[in-house]
């Protein structure tokens, strides 16, 4: 792995981690268990759109692993539920990003919906109660505003080209910032 790629991916992982931390600090007054804004998804979607799906999966898995180690939930049911949700969200977003069907906001909503579907299926298998599906319609409805909320920064960054990553990037004259010169 090239140094430039390693540094970029590390930065995106750091963004995903800090967003997970901010989300944990927010109050959770919701009566629906498992309802979250899904801020870390912002970094995953940005990675899919700017670098690639494979790299996004790597960041998603490392984020879930790091968060579970930091919060002490490694290998507990909540870790396995996050993992299933994270993988399904990544799969749905990278699949539809390739099809070029939806914009960043649509992809973000789709990721949120599939995250909730994955979490619910994992919770059903782990806890053995179909009662978890009772919350799924509410979670899908909440995915729409929460998906839009996390999608807006991705939309702005992506459409205004604020974050560019080229595999074959070489030195350009316009890169007069000495910190990013090769």
């Amino acid at each position: 792995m090239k140094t430039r790629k390693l540094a970029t991916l590390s930065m995106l992982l750091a963004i995903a981690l800090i967003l997970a931390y901010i989300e944990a600090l927010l109050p959770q007054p919701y009566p629906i268990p498992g309802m979250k804004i899904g801020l870390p998804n912002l970094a995953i979607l940005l990675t899919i759109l700017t670098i690639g799906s494979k790299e996004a999966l790597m960041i998603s898995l490392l984020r879930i692993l790091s968060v579970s180690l930091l919060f002490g939930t490694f290998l507990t049911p909540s870790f396995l539920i996050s993992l299933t949700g994270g993988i399904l969200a990544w799969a749905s977003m990278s699949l539809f990003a390739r099809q070029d069907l939806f914009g960043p906001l649509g992809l973000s909503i789709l990721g949120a919906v599939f995250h909730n579907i994955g979490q619910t299926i994992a919770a059903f298998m782990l806890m053995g109660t179909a009662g978890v599906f009772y919350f799924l319609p509410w979670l899908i409805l909440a995915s729409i505003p929460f998906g839009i909320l996390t999608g807006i920064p991705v939309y702005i960054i992506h459409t205004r080209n604020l974050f560019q990553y080229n595999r074959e990037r070489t030195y350009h004259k316009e890169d007069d910032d000495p910190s990013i010169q090769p």
Partner: protein
Amino acid sequence: MLNKRDLILIAALIVIALGSLAIILLNIDRPETGTVVVRVSDQVEAEIPLEGNALTDFAGVFGPFTVEIRDSQVRIREATCPDQYCVQQGWLDNTSSSIICLPNQAVIEIKGEEQLDGVSR
């Protein structure tokens, strides 16, 4: 910001969510009497009748928690788990849903009595 297909996706999701919500809410059963089943790690810890007022303590995987029954409803009154989602979830009064405490691996469900006299309804 939202293109046409994004809007179609949103509309489809709203229809799916509201449709399944309607199916769930139309079939919801809020029994006056029944049984409260408390499970920890897939083991049935207790089956308490859903009547009167009762407080029962349980040992979860993470720590102790207290189940309260009042007015044909059940809730986790107190728990030592860090996230407290189970306590915030509040009262459960129907057979469709359940209260879940992930750190304690605890599930609380209400079983109605119509399993026995469903024919006579």
